[in-house]
Protein backbone atom coordinates (compact mmCIF):
# COMPACT_ATOMS: atom_id res chain seq x y z
CA UNK A 1 0.00 0.00 0.00
CA UNK A 2 1.35 3.41 -0.84
CA UNK A 3 1.74 6.19 1.72
CA UNK A 4 -0.81 8.45 0.05
CA UNK A 5 -3.55 6.01 1.12
CA UNK A 6 -3.44 7.42 4.64
CA UNK A 7 -4.99 10.65 3.43
CA UNK A 8 -8.14 8.85 2.28
CA UNK A 9 -11.18 8.50 4.53
CA UNK A 10 -11.68 5.25 6.40
CA UNK A 11 -13.25 2.48 4.39
CA UNK A 12 -11.58 3.54 1.18
CA UNK A 13 -8.13 2.14 1.89
CA UNK A 14 -8.05 -0.23 -1.05
CA UNK A 15 -8.28 2.38 -3.79
CA UNK A 16 -5.90 0.45 -5.99
CA UNK A 17 -8.17 -2.56 -5.97
CA UNK A 18 -11.35 -0.54 -6.02
CA UNK A 19 -13.95 -1.42 -3.44
CA UNK A 20 -16.80 -3.68 -4.44
CA UNK A 21 -20.40 -3.33 -3.33
CA UNK A 22 -19.81 -6.18 -0.88
CA UNK A 23 -16.69 -4.64 0.64
CA UNK A 24 -18.51 -1.33 1.13
CA UNK A 25 -21.46 -3.14 2.64
CA UNK A 26 -19.19 -5.01 5.05
CA UNK A 27 -17.63 -1.76 6.24
CA UNK A 28 -21.08 -0.31 6.85
CA UNK A 29 -22.25 -3.48 8.57
CA UNK A 30 -19.26 -3.48 10.92
CA UNK A 31 -20.18 0.01 12.10
CA UNK A 32 -23.67 -1.15 13.07
CA UNK A 33 -23.15 -2.52 16.57
CA UNK A 34 -26.65 -3.98 16.96
CA UNK A 35 -26.36 -5.86 13.68
CA UNK A 36 -22.92 -7.21 14.58
CA UNK A 37 -24.24 -8.29 17.98
CA UNK A 38 -27.17 -9.96 16.20
CA UNK A 39 -24.77 -11.74 13.86
CA UNK A 40 -22.66 -12.99 16.75
CA UNK A 41 -25.74 -14.26 18.60
CA UNK A 42 -27.03 -15.99 15.46
CA UNK A 43 -23.72 -17.76 14.97
CA UNK A 44 -23.49 -18.74 18.66
CA UNK A 45 -27.02 -20.12 18.66
CA UNK A 46 -26.35 -22.11 15.49
CA UNK A 47 -23.13 -23.50 16.98
CA UNK A 48 -24.81 -24.30 20.30
CA UNK A 49 -27.70 -26.15 18.66
CA UNK A 50 -25.85 -27.97 15.92
CA UNK A 51 -22.35 -28.52 17.37
CA UNK A 52 -22.44 -28.32 21.16
CA UNK A 53 -25.78 -30.12 21.58
CA UNK A 54 -24.62 -33.25 19.68
CA UNK A 55 -21.41 -33.24 21.75
CA UNK A 56 -23.42 -32.96 24.97
CA UNK A 57 -25.67 -35.79 23.92
CA UNK A 58 -22.56 -37.84 22.97
CA UNK A 59 -21.12 -37.40 26.47
CA UNK A 60 -24.34 -38.57 28.07
CA UNK A 61 -26.85 -35.74 28.36
CA UNK A 62 -30.21 -36.91 27.09
CA UNK A 63 -33.28 -34.78 26.38
CA UNK A 64 -35.71 -37.68 26.05
CA UNK A 65 -34.95 -39.74 29.14
CA UNK A 66 -37.72 -39.31 31.69
CA UNK A 67 -37.12 -39.29 35.42
CA UNK A 68 -40.49 -38.82 37.11
CA UNK A 69 -38.97 -38.78 40.60
CA UNK A 70 -36.98 -35.73 39.58
CA UNK A 71 -39.65 -33.39 38.20
CA UNK A 72 -39.00 -29.62 38.03
CA UNK A 73 -35.57 -30.11 39.61
CA UNK A 74 -33.29 -27.11 39.94
CA UNK A 75 -29.97 -26.79 38.14
CA UNK A 76 -27.38 -29.44 39.00
CA UNK A 77 -24.32 -31.01 37.40
CA UNK A 78 -26.53 -33.72 35.93
CA UNK A 79 -29.13 -31.29 34.59
CA UNK A 80 -27.45 -27.98 33.89
CA UNK A 81 -30.75 -26.04 33.68
CA UNK A 82 -32.85 -28.40 35.76
CA UNK A 83 -35.62 -30.67 34.54
CA UNK A 84 -39.10 -30.31 33.06
CA UNK A 85 -42.53 -31.69 33.99
CA UNK A 86 -41.45 -35.27 33.14
CA UNK A 87 -38.00 -35.00 34.68
CA UNK A 88 -36.28 -34.57 31.30
CA UNK A 89 -33.16 -32.45 31.03
CA UNK A 90 -34.38 -28.96 30.15
CA UNK A 91 -31.18 -27.77 28.48
CA UNK A 92 -31.10 -30.70 26.09
CA UNK A 93 -34.83 -30.39 25.37
CA UNK A 94 -34.41 -26.72 24.48
CA UNK A 95 -31.34 -27.30 22.32
CA UNK A 96 -32.95 -30.21 20.48
CA UNK A 97 -36.12 -28.16 20.04
CA UNK A 98 -33.95 -25.38 18.65
CA UNK A 99 -32.42 -27.77 16.13
CA UNK A 100 -35.88 -28.55 14.77
CA UNK A 101 -37.09 -24.93 14.82
CA UNK A 102 -33.98 -23.68 13.03
CA UNK A 103 -33.87 -26.60 10.62
CA UNK A 104 -37.48 -26.11 9.52
CA UNK A 105 -37.04 -22.34 9.21
CA UNK A 106 -33.80 -22.59 7.23
CA UNK A 107 -35.08 -25.31 4.90
CA UNK A 108 -38.31 -23.39 4.31
CA UNK A 109 -36.33 -20.21 3.62
CA UNK A 110 -34.19 -22.01 1.03
CA UNK A 111 -37.35 -23.30 -0.65
CA UNK A 112 -38.91 -19.83 -0.50
CA UNK A 113 -35.87 -18.21 -2.07
CA UNK A 114 -35.74 -20.80 -4.86
CA UNK A 115 -39.43 -20.60 -5.73
CA UNK A 116 -39.66 -16.84 -5.19
CA UNK A 117 -36.60 -16.06 -7.31
CA UNK A 118 -37.66 -18.24 -10.22
CA UNK A 119 -41.32 -17.16 -10.19
CA UNK A 120 -40.72 -13.50 -9.40
CA UNK A 121 -37.74 -13.32 -11.75
CA UNK A 122 -39.73 -14.69 -14.65
CA UNK A 123 -42.76 -12.52 -13.86
CA UNK A 124 -40.58 -9.41 -13.66
CA UNK A 125 -38.44 -10.18 -16.69
CA UNK A 126 -41.28 -11.24 -18.97
CA UNK A 127 -43.56 -8.50 -17.67
CA UNK A 128 -46.61 -7.49 -19.68
CA UNK A 129 -49.79 -9.47 -19.43
CA UNK A 130 -48.17 -12.75 -18.42
CA UNK A 131 -46.15 -11.11 -15.68
CA UNK A 132 -49.21 -9.28 -14.44
CA UNK A 133 -51.32 -12.41 -14.44
CA UNK A 134 -48.60 -14.22 -12.48
CA UNK A 135 -48.63 -11.49 -9.85
CA UNK A 136 -52.43 -11.45 -9.61
CA UNK A 137 -52.25 -15.15 -8.64
CA UNK A 138 -49.82 -14.20 -5.87
CA UNK A 139 -52.08 -11.35 -4.71
CA UNK A 140 -55.05 -13.70 -4.66
CA UNK A 141 -53.26 -16.31 -2.56
CA UNK A 142 -52.11 -13.58 -0.17
CA UNK A 143 -55.78 -12.77 0.45
CA UNK A 144 -56.28 -16.29 1.85
CA UNK A 145 -56.34 -16.71 5.62
CA UNK A 146 -52.79 -17.75 6.55
CA UNK A 147 -53.79 -20.71 8.74
CA UNK A 148 -56.13 -22.23 6.18
CA UNK A 149 -53.59 -22.18 3.37
CA UNK A 150 -50.79 -23.54 5.56
CA UNK A 151 -52.84 -26.38 7.02
CA UNK A 152 -54.22 -27.22 3.59
CA UNK A 153 -50.73 -27.48 2.11
CA UNK A 154 -49.50 -29.45 5.10
CA UNK A 155 -52.26 -32.04 4.89
CA UNK A 156 -52.05 -32.45 1.13
CA UNK A 157 -48.27 -32.90 1.27
CA UNK A 158 -48.12 -35.16 4.32
CA UNK A 159 -49.91 -37.95 2.47
CA UNK A 160 -47.26 -37.92 -0.27
CA UNK A 161 -44.40 -37.68 2.21
CA UNK A 162 -45.70 -40.68 4.18
CA UNK A 163 -45.67 -42.74 1.00
CA UNK A 164 -42.11 -41.75 0.20
CA UNK A 165 -41.02 -42.45 3.77
CA UNK A 166 -42.63 -45.92 3.66
CA UNK A 167 -40.87 -46.58 0.37
CA UNK A 168 -37.48 -45.58 1.79
CA UNK A 169 -37.97 -47.77 4.85
CA UNK A 170 -39.44 -50.83 3.17
CA UNK A 171 -37.63 -50.92 -0.16
CA UNK A 172 -34.34 -49.25 0.62
CA UNK A 173 -33.98 -50.46 4.19
CA UNK A 174 -33.35 -47.02 5.69
CA UNK A 175 -33.50 -46.60 9.45
CA UNK A 176 -37.22 -46.12 10.05
CA UNK A 177 -36.80 -44.02 13.17
CA UNK A 178 -34.62 -41.42 11.44
CA UNK A 179 -36.73 -41.37 8.29
CA UNK A 180 -39.98 -40.90 10.17
CA UNK A 181 -38.54 -38.17 12.38
CA UNK A 182 -37.30 -36.27 9.36
CA UNK A 183 -40.43 -37.01 7.31
CA UNK A 184 -42.42 -35.32 10.06
CA UNK A 185 -40.66 -32.03 9.32
CA UNK A 186 -41.17 -32.01 5.57
CA UNK A 187 -44.91 -31.24 5.28
CA UNK A 188 -44.54 -28.38 7.75
CA UNK A 189 -41.53 -27.00 5.88
CA UNK A 190 -43.36 -27.13 2.56
CA UNK A 191 -46.50 -25.64 4.06
CA UNK A 192 -44.61 -22.67 5.50
CA UNK A 193 -42.69 -22.17 2.27
CA UNK A 194 -45.93 -22.59 0.30
CA UNK A 195 -47.22 -19.43 1.93
CA UNK A 196 -43.91 -17.68 2.43
CA UNK A 197 -42.74 -17.58 -1.19
CA UNK A 198 -45.58 -15.21 -2.08
CA UNK A 199 -43.92 -12.16 -0.50
CA UNK A 200 -40.51 -13.23 -1.78
CA UNK A 201 -41.96 -13.51 -5.29
CA UNK A 202 -43.34 -9.97 -5.05
CA UNK A 203 -40.04 -8.47 -3.92
CA UNK A 204 -38.04 -10.32 -6.58
CA UNK A 205 -40.53 -9.36 -9.27
CA UNK A 206 -40.31 -5.66 -8.52
CA UNK A 207 -36.52 -5.62 -8.60
CA UNK A 208 -36.38 -7.87 -11.68
CA UNK A 209 -38.88 -5.62 -13.46
CA UNK A 210 -36.81 -2.52 -12.80
CA UNK A 211 -33.57 -4.27 -13.78
CA UNK A 212 -35.13 -5.55 -17.01
CA UNK A 213 -35.61 -1.93 -18.13
CA UNK A 214 -31.96 -1.04 -17.66
CA UNK A 215 -29.47 -0.48 -20.43
CA UNK A 216 -27.11 -3.32 -19.61
CA UNK A 217 -29.97 -5.77 -20.06
CA UNK A 218 -30.88 -4.13 -23.34
CA UNK A 219 -27.24 -4.47 -24.38
CA UNK A 220 -27.27 -8.15 -23.45
CA UNK A 221 -30.43 -8.61 -25.42
CA UNK A 222 -29.03 -6.88 -28.47
CA UNK A 223 -26.00 -9.16 -28.29
CA UNK A 224 -28.45 -12.00 -28.81
CA UNK A 225 -28.01 -13.70 -25.45
CA UNK A 226 -30.68 -16.23 -24.52
CA UNK A 227 -33.38 -15.26 -22.06
CA UNK A 228 -32.13 -17.82 -19.59
CA UNK A 229 -28.62 -16.42 -19.72
CA UNK A 230 -29.82 -12.84 -19.28
CA UNK A 231 -32.00 -13.86 -16.38
CA UNK A 232 -29.40 -15.91 -14.52
CA UNK A 233 -26.16 -14.13 -15.48
CA UNK A 234 -27.23 -10.51 -15.61
CA UNK A 235 -30.42 -9.96 -13.66
CA UNK A 236 -30.04 -12.48 -10.83
CA UNK A 237 -26.59 -11.33 -9.60
CA UNK A 238 -27.88 -7.78 -9.44
CA UNK A 239 -30.79 -8.86 -7.27
CA UNK A 240 -28.59 -10.67 -4.74
CA UNK A 241 -28.69 -7.76 -2.30
CA UNK A 242 -32.47 -7.66 -1.79
CA UNK A 243 -32.62 -11.46 -1.88
CA UNK A 244 -30.04 -11.84 0.90
CA UNK A 245 -31.70 -9.14 2.99
CA UNK A 246 -35.11 -10.66 2.60
CA UNK A 247 -33.89 -14.21 3.21
CA UNK A 248 -32.27 -13.13 6.48
CA UNK A 249 -35.51 -11.49 7.56
CA UNK A 250 -37.52 -14.51 6.40
CA UNK A 251 -35.76 -16.93 8.73
CA UNK A 252 -37.09 -15.32 11.94
CA UNK A 253 -40.58 -14.99 10.50
CA UNK A 254 -40.52 -18.70 9.61
CA UNK A 255 -39.22 -19.60 13.08
CA UNK A 256 -42.25 -17.69 14.30
CA UNK A 257 -44.68 -19.43 11.90
CA UNK A 258 -43.32 -22.82 12.91
CA UNK A 259 -43.61 -21.96 16.59
CA UNK A 260 -47.17 -20.68 16.14
CA UNK A 261 -48.22 -23.83 14.32
CA UNK A 262 -46.53 -26.08 16.85
CA UNK A 263 -48.02 -24.03 19.65
CA UNK A 264 -51.54 -24.66 18.41
CA UNK A 265 -50.75 -28.33 17.85
CA UNK A 266 -50.57 -28.32 14.06
CA UNK A 267 -46.82 -28.28 13.64
CA UNK A 268 -44.18 -30.62 14.94
CA UNK A 269 -45.33 -33.98 16.24
CA UNK A 270 -43.69 -36.13 18.95
CA UNK A 271 -41.02 -37.44 19.33
CA UNK A 272 -39.79 -34.24 17.69
CA UNK A 273 -40.13 -31.06 19.66
CA UNK A 274 -39.57 -27.42 18.87
CA UNK A 275 -39.47 -24.09 20.67
CA UNK A 276 -43.15 -23.45 19.95
CA UNK A 277 -44.11 -26.83 21.39
CA UNK A 278 -41.89 -26.31 24.45
CA UNK A 279 -43.40 -22.87 25.09
CA UNK A 280 -46.90 -24.32 24.81
CA UNK A 281 -46.05 -27.12 27.26
CA UNK A 282 -44.29 -24.68 29.56
CA UNK A 283 -47.29 -22.33 29.64
CA UNK A 284 -49.31 -25.12 31.28
CA UNK A 285 -46.93 -25.16 34.25
CA UNK A 286 -46.72 -21.39 34.54
CA UNK A 287 -47.55 -21.36 38.24
CA UNK A 288 -45.68 -24.51 39.25
CA UNK A 289 -42.36 -23.73 37.63
CA UNK A 290 -41.65 -20.74 35.45
CA UNK A 291 -38.31 -22.01 34.09
CA UNK A 292 -39.94 -24.55 31.77
CA UNK A 293 -41.63 -21.62 30.02
CA UNK A 294 -38.88 -19.05 30.50
CA UNK A 295 -35.94 -21.00 29.06
CA UNK A 296 -37.45 -21.79 25.64
CA UNK A 297 -39.26 -18.43 25.51
CA UNK A 298 -36.08 -16.44 26.18
CA UNK A 299 -33.99 -18.42 23.70
CA UNK A 300 -36.76 -18.17 21.09
CA UNK A 301 -37.17 -14.41 21.50
CA UNK A 302 -33.41 -13.89 21.56
CA UNK A 303 -33.08 -15.77 18.26
CA UNK A 304 -35.81 -13.67 16.66
CA UNK A 305 -34.12 -10.49 17.91
CA UNK A 306 -30.74 -11.55 16.60
CA UNK A 307 -31.95 -12.53 13.14
CA UNK A 308 -34.03 -9.38 12.81
CA UNK A 309 -31.22 -7.05 13.88
CA UNK A 310 -28.82 -8.82 11.53
CA UNK A 311 -31.33 -8.57 8.68
CA UNK A 312 -31.99 -4.89 9.33
CA UNK A 313 -28.25 -4.25 9.50
CA UNK A 314 -27.70 -6.08 6.22
CA UNK A 315 -30.40 -3.96 4.63
CA UNK A 316 -28.81 -0.74 5.88
CA UNK A 317 -25.45 -1.96 4.63
CA UNK A 318 -26.42 -3.34 1.24
CA UNK A 319 -29.17 -0.97 0.29
CA UNK A 320 -28.65 2.36 2.07
CA UNK A 321 -31.49 4.00 0.16
CA UNK A 322 -34.13 1.59 1.39
CA UNK A 323 -33.02 1.53 5.00
CA UNK A 324 -35.56 3.83 6.52
CA UNK A 325 -38.25 1.51 7.74
Amino acid at each position, binding site marked *: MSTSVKALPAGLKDVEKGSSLWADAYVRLKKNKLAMLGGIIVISILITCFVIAPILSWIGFDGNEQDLANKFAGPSTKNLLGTDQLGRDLLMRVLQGGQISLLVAIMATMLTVTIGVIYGGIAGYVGGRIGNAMMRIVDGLLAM*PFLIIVILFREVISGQVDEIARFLIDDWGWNDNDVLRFANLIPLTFAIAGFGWLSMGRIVRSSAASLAQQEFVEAARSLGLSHRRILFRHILPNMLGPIIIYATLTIPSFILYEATLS*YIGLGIEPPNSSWGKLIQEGANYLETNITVLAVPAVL*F*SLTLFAFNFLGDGLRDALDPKASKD
Partner: protein
Amino acid sequence: MLRIILSRLLQTLVVVFLLVTFTFFAIRMMPGNPFADVKALTEENKAAMERLYGLDKPLHIQYANYWKNVLLEGDFGDSFSMKGRKVSTLISESFPISLKLGLLSLFLAMSLGIPLGIIAALFHNKWQDYTAMIIAMAGICIVTFVLGPIFQLSFAKPLSWLNVAGWSRPSDVILPAITLCFGVAAYLARLTRGGMLDILSQDYIRSAKAKGVSQLNIITKHALRPALVPAVTFLGPAFAAIITGSFVVESIFLIPGMGQYFVLGIQNQDYTLVLGLVLFYGILMGIANLMSDLALIFMDPKLRNS
Protein backbone atom coordinates in the same frame (compact mmCIF):
# COMPACT_ATOMS: atom_id res chain seq x y z
CA MET B 1 -63.33 8.45 -7.21
CA LEU B 2 -66.43 6.42 -7.99
CA ARG B 3 -64.52 4.59 -10.70
CA ILE B 4 -61.83 3.60 -8.23
CA ILE B 5 -64.40 2.28 -5.77
CA LEU B 6 -66.22 0.33 -8.45
CA SER B 7 -63.10 -1.21 -9.95
CA ARG B 8 -61.87 -2.16 -6.47
CA LEU B 9 -65.17 -3.84 -5.64
CA LEU B 10 -65.11 -5.68 -8.95
CA GLN B 11 -61.57 -6.84 -8.25
CA THR B 12 -62.64 -8.05 -4.83
CA LEU B 13 -65.47 -10.08 -6.34
CA VAL B 14 -63.10 -11.71 -8.82
CA VAL B 15 -60.56 -12.49 -6.09
CA VAL B 16 -63.21 -13.93 -3.77
CA PHE B 17 -64.65 -16.05 -6.59
CA LEU B 18 -61.18 -17.43 -7.42
CA LEU B 19 -60.34 -18.03 -3.76
CA VAL B 20 -63.52 -19.97 -3.11
CA THR B 21 -62.98 -21.99 -6.29
CA PHE B 22 -59.38 -22.75 -5.33
CA THR B 23 -60.36 -23.70 -1.78
CA PHE B 24 -63.31 -25.77 -2.95
CA PHE B 25 -61.11 -28.05 -5.05
CA ALA B 26 -57.96 -27.91 -2.91
CA ILE B 27 -59.71 -28.96 0.29
CA ARG B 28 -60.87 -32.17 -1.40
CA MET B 29 -57.27 -33.11 -2.07
CA MET B 30 -56.76 -33.51 1.66
CA PRO B 31 -56.41 -37.13 2.72
CA GLY B 32 -59.32 -38.65 4.66
CA ASN B 33 -62.91 -37.45 4.57
CA PRO B 34 -65.08 -35.15 6.69
CA PHE B 35 -66.72 -38.01 8.56
CA ALA B 36 -63.63 -40.09 9.25
CA ASP B 37 -63.58 -38.97 12.88
CA VAL B 38 -67.15 -39.98 13.64
CA LYS B 39 -66.85 -43.26 15.50
CA ALA B 40 -68.64 -46.47 14.51
CA LEU B 41 -69.69 -45.12 11.18
CA THR B 42 -70.81 -47.91 8.90
CA GLU B 43 -70.55 -47.66 5.16
CA GLU B 44 -74.30 -47.19 4.99
CA ASN B 45 -74.30 -44.34 7.48
CA LYS B 46 -71.41 -42.72 5.74
CA ALA B 47 -73.23 -42.90 2.42
CA ALA B 48 -76.32 -41.44 4.06
CA MET B 49 -74.26 -38.60 5.54
CA GLU B 50 -72.70 -37.87 2.18
CA ARG B 51 -76.13 -37.85 0.57
CA LEU B 52 -77.42 -35.51 3.25
CA TYR B 53 -74.70 -32.97 2.54
CA GLY B 54 -74.82 -33.57 -1.20
CA LEU B 55 -71.33 -35.04 -1.31
CA ASP B 56 -72.42 -38.03 -3.40
CA LYS B 57 -72.99 -35.90 -6.49
CA PRO B 58 -70.25 -35.23 -9.05
CA LEU B 59 -67.82 -32.51 -8.00
CA HIS B 60 -68.86 -29.93 -10.59
CA ILE B 61 -72.52 -30.28 -9.58
CA GLN B 62 -71.56 -29.78 -5.93
CA TYR B 63 -69.59 -26.72 -6.95
CA ALA B 64 -72.50 -25.26 -8.92
CA ASN B 65 -74.88 -26.06 -6.04
CA TYR B 66 -72.63 -24.25 -3.59
CA TRP B 67 -72.75 -21.03 -5.57
CA LYS B 68 -76.47 -21.45 -6.24
CA ASN B 69 -77.16 -21.68 -2.51
CA VAL B 70 -74.85 -18.81 -1.63
CA LEU B 71 -75.98 -16.40 -4.31
CA LEU B 72 -79.68 -17.16 -4.66
CA GLU B 73 -80.61 -18.09 -1.11
CA GLY B 74 -77.77 -16.52 0.89
CA ASP B 75 -77.22 -19.95 2.43
CA PHE B 76 -73.64 -20.91 3.30
CA GLY B 77 -74.71 -24.44 4.16
CA ASP B 78 -74.65 -26.51 7.34
CA SER B 79 -71.46 -27.10 9.25
CA PHE B 80 -70.28 -30.72 9.00
CA SER B 81 -68.46 -30.85 12.30
CA MET B 82 -70.78 -28.79 14.51
CA LYS B 83 -73.99 -30.68 14.03
CA GLY B 84 -77.17 -28.75 13.39
CA ARG B 85 -75.36 -25.41 13.19
CA LYS B 86 -75.41 -23.26 10.10
CA VAL B 87 -72.12 -21.75 8.94
CA SER B 88 -73.77 -18.33 8.84
CA THR B 89 -74.83 -18.70 12.49
CA LEU B 90 -71.33 -19.71 13.57
CA ILE B 91 -69.88 -16.66 11.83
CA SER B 92 -72.52 -14.21 13.00
CA GLU B 93 -72.14 -15.38 16.61
CA SER B 94 -68.37 -15.28 16.80
CA PHE B 95 -67.54 -12.35 14.54
CA PRO B 96 -68.83 -9.58 16.88
CA ILE B 97 -66.56 -10.92 19.63
CA SER B 98 -63.49 -10.93 17.40
CA LEU B 99 -64.49 -7.55 16.01
CA LYS B 100 -64.68 -5.97 19.47
CA LEU B 101 -61.34 -7.42 20.50
CA GLY B 102 -59.75 -6.55 17.17
CA LEU B 103 -60.96 -2.95 17.09
CA LEU B 104 -59.75 -2.25 20.63
CA SER B 105 -56.37 -3.77 19.92
CA LEU B 106 -56.03 -1.88 16.63
CA PHE B 107 -56.85 1.35 18.45
CA LEU B 108 -54.20 0.56 21.06
CA ALA B 109 -51.69 -0.38 18.37
CA MET B 110 -52.22 2.86 16.47
CA SER B 111 -52.03 5.08 19.53
CA LEU B 112 -48.82 3.33 20.58
CA GLY B 113 -47.08 2.62 17.28
CA ILE B 114 -47.61 5.84 15.32
CA PRO B 115 -46.31 8.25 18.02
CA LEU B 116 -43.36 5.93 18.63
CA GLY B 117 -42.50 6.01 14.93
CA ILE B 118 -42.80 9.80 14.78
CA ILE B 119 -40.53 10.23 17.81
CA ALA B 120 -37.98 7.84 16.30
CA ALA B 121 -37.93 9.79 13.03
CA LEU B 122 -37.67 13.20 14.68
CA PHE B 123 -34.68 12.06 16.71
CA HIS B 124 -33.12 10.10 13.84
CA ASN B 125 -29.96 8.26 14.95
CA LYS B 126 -30.19 9.63 18.51
CA TRP B 127 -30.87 7.58 21.62
CA GLN B 128 -34.63 8.20 21.34
CA ASP B 129 -34.56 6.61 17.88
CA TYR B 130 -32.62 3.57 19.06
CA THR B 131 -34.83 3.11 22.12
CA ALA B 132 -38.01 3.36 20.04
CA MET B 133 -36.71 0.89 17.48
CA ILE B 134 -35.59 -1.58 20.13
CA ILE B 135 -39.06 -1.36 21.70
CA ALA B 136 -40.57 -1.95 18.26
CA MET B 137 -38.31 -4.94 17.69
CA ALA B 138 -39.38 -6.32 21.08
CA GLY B 139 -42.99 -6.03 19.92
CA ILE B 140 -42.17 -8.19 16.90
CA CYS B 141 -39.98 -10.72 18.72
CA ILE B 142 -41.89 -11.24 21.97
CA VAL B 143 -44.84 -13.00 20.45
CA THR B 144 -48.43 -13.35 21.66
CA PHE B 145 -48.03 -16.83 23.09
CA VAL B 146 -45.12 -15.69 25.26
CA LEU B 147 -46.72 -12.36 26.17
CA GLY B 148 -50.17 -13.81 26.96
CA PRO B 149 -49.07 -16.14 29.78
CA ILE B 150 -46.80 -13.42 31.21
CA PHE B 151 -49.75 -11.00 31.33
CA GLN B 152 -51.97 -13.63 32.90
CA LEU B 153 -49.42 -14.24 35.62
CA SER B 154 -48.42 -10.66 36.30
CA PHE B 155 -51.73 -8.77 35.93
CA ALA B 156 -54.72 -11.11 36.08
CA LYS B 157 -53.44 -12.96 39.15
CA PRO B 158 -52.89 -9.96 41.45
CA LEU B 159 -55.75 -7.78 40.13
CA SER B 160 -59.13 -9.09 41.18
CA TRP B 161 -61.05 -7.17 38.52
CA LEU B 162 -59.25 -9.01 35.73
CA ASN B 163 -60.01 -12.61 34.86
CA VAL B 164 -57.13 -14.87 33.89
CA ALA B 165 -59.25 -16.13 31.00
CA GLY B 166 -62.82 -16.21 29.82
CA TRP B 167 -65.32 -13.91 28.16
CA SER B 168 -67.96 -13.03 30.71
CA ARG B 169 -67.04 -9.59 32.07
CA PRO B 170 -66.49 -6.39 30.06
CA SER B 171 -62.96 -6.18 31.47
CA ASP B 172 -62.12 -9.51 29.82
CA VAL B 173 -61.30 -7.72 26.58
CA ILE B 174 -58.39 -5.77 28.10
CA LEU B 175 -55.59 -8.32 28.46
CA PRO B 176 -56.12 -10.07 25.11
CA ALA B 177 -56.35 -6.71 23.34
CA ILE B 178 -53.06 -5.57 24.87
CA THR B 179 -51.43 -8.91 24.04
CA LEU B 180 -52.59 -8.63 20.45
CA CYS B 181 -51.67 -4.98 19.92
CA PHE B 182 -47.87 -5.09 20.38
CA GLY B 183 -47.03 -6.86 17.14
CA VAL B 184 -49.15 -4.47 15.06
CA ALA B 185 -47.86 -1.46 17.00
CA ALA B 186 -44.31 -2.54 16.26
CA TYR B 187 -44.88 -2.71 12.50
CA LEU B 188 -46.74 0.61 12.58
CA ALA B 189 -43.86 2.25 14.44
CA ARG B 190 -41.30 1.00 11.92
CA LEU B 191 -43.41 2.02 8.92
CA THR B 192 -44.27 5.44 10.37
CA ARG B 193 -40.61 6.10 11.11
CA GLY B 194 -39.66 5.16 7.56
CA GLY B 195 -42.39 7.32 6.01
CA MET B 196 -41.55 10.25 8.27
CA LEU B 197 -37.82 10.11 7.48
CA ASP B 198 -38.65 10.01 3.81
CA ILE B 199 -40.88 13.09 4.00
CA LEU B 200 -38.62 15.08 6.32
CA SER B 201 -35.85 14.95 3.71
CA GLN B 202 -38.11 16.43 0.99
CA ASP B 203 -37.53 19.87 -0.46
CA TYR B 204 -40.91 21.26 0.54
CA ILE B 205 -40.16 20.59 4.20
CA ARG B 206 -36.88 22.45 3.83
CA SER B 207 -38.75 25.36 2.21
CA ALA B 208 -41.19 25.41 5.11
CA LYS B 209 -38.28 25.46 7.57
CA ALA B 210 -36.63 28.27 5.64
CA LYS B 211 -39.82 30.30 5.79
CA GLY B 212 -39.73 29.94 9.55
CA VAL B 213 -42.64 27.58 10.07
CA SER B 214 -42.46 26.15 13.58
CA GLN B 215 -41.31 22.56 14.12
CA LEU B 216 -44.74 21.58 15.46
CA ASN B 217 -46.51 23.02 12.43
CA ILE B 218 -44.15 21.34 10.02
CA ILE B 219 -44.87 17.97 11.58
CA THR B 220 -48.61 18.26 12.02
CA LYS B 221 -49.55 20.29 8.95
CA HIS B 222 -46.96 19.32 6.35
CA ALA B 223 -45.24 16.05 7.16
CA LEU B 224 -47.64 13.81 9.04
CA ARG B 225 -50.26 13.16 6.38
CA PRO B 226 -47.94 11.94 3.59
CA ALA B 227 -45.66 10.24 6.14
CA LEU B 228 -48.43 7.91 7.23
CA VAL B 229 -48.90 6.44 3.73
CA PRO B 230 -46.84 3.26 4.34
CA ALA B 231 -48.52 2.68 7.70
CA VAL B 232 -51.99 3.01 6.18
CA THR B 233 -51.09 0.66 3.33
CA PHE B 234 -50.14 -1.91 5.96
CA LEU B 235 -53.24 -1.25 8.06
CA GLY B 236 -55.64 -2.40 5.32
CA PRO B 237 -54.79 -6.10 5.28
CA ALA B 238 -53.79 -6.04 8.97
CA PHE B 239 -57.25 -4.74 9.83
CA ALA B 240 -58.96 -7.63 8.06
CA ALA B 241 -56.63 -10.16 9.67
CA ILE B 242 -57.09 -8.80 13.19
CA ILE B 243 -60.85 -8.39 13.31
CA THR B 244 -61.33 -11.98 12.14
CA GLY B 245 -59.67 -13.18 15.31
CA SER B 246 -56.41 -14.75 16.34
CA PHE B 247 -56.52 -18.43 17.18
CA VAL B 248 -53.55 -18.18 19.53
CA VAL B 249 -54.87 -15.29 21.61
CA GLU B 250 -58.34 -16.80 21.67
CA SER B 251 -57.01 -20.10 22.95
CA ILE B 252 -54.80 -18.49 25.62
CA PHE B 253 -57.64 -16.35 26.99
CA LEU B 254 -60.47 -18.78 26.15
CA ILE B 255 -62.41 -16.37 23.97
CA PRO B 256 -65.26 -17.72 21.81
CA GLY B 257 -64.14 -15.68 18.80
CA MET B 258 -63.89 -16.47 15.12
CA GLY B 259 -60.20 -17.41 14.99
CA GLN B 260 -60.87 -20.90 16.34
CA TYR B 261 -63.04 -21.83 13.35
CA PHE B 262 -60.21 -21.24 10.88
CA VAL B 263 -58.30 -24.05 12.61
CA LEU B 264 -61.19 -26.30 13.64
CA GLY B 265 -62.84 -26.04 10.23
CA ILE B 266 -59.87 -27.21 8.26
CA GLN B 267 -58.77 -29.75 10.87
CA ASN B 268 -62.20 -31.40 10.78
CA GLN B 269 -62.39 -31.05 7.00
CA ASP B 270 -65.56 -29.07 7.47
CA TYR B 271 -65.87 -28.05 3.81
CA THR B 272 -68.79 -25.66 4.17
CA LEU B 273 -67.32 -23.91 7.22
CA VAL B 274 -63.94 -23.39 5.52
CA LEU B 275 -65.57 -22.10 2.33
CA GLY B 276 -67.79 -19.76 4.31
CA LEU B 277 -64.78 -18.41 6.19
CA VAL B 278 -62.72 -17.93 3.04
CA LEU B 279 -65.64 -16.11 1.42
CA PHE B 280 -66.18 -13.89 4.46
CA TYR B 281 -62.47 -13.19 4.93
CA GLY B 282 -61.98 -12.39 1.24
CA ILE B 283 -64.83 -9.86 1.25
CA LEU B 284 -63.54 -8.24 4.46
CA MET B 285 -60.06 -8.07 2.97
CA GLY B 286 -61.47 -6.37 -0.12
CA ILE B 287 -63.39 -3.82 1.95
CA ALA B 288 -60.36 -3.16 4.18
CA ASN B 289 -58.13 -2.63 1.15
CA LEU B 290 -60.71 -0.29 -0.37
CA MET B 291 -60.83 1.75 2.83
CA SER B 292 -57.06 1.98 2.95
CA ASP B 293 -56.97 3.00 -0.74
CA LEU B 294 -59.50 5.75 -0.10
CA ALA B 295 -57.54 6.94 2.91
CA LEU B 296 -54.39 7.02 0.78
CA ILE B 297 -56.12 9.11 -1.89
CA PHE B 298 -57.17 11.55 0.82
CA MET B 299 -53.65 11.65 2.22
CA ASP B 300 -51.60 11.87 -0.94
CA PRO B 301 -52.97 14.28 -3.58
CA LYS B 302 -50.62 12.81 -6.19
CA LEU B 303 -52.60 9.56 -6.11
CA ARG B 304 -55.83 11.38 -7.00
CA ASN B 305 -54.86 11.76 -10.64
CA SER B 306 -53.54 8.28 -11.27
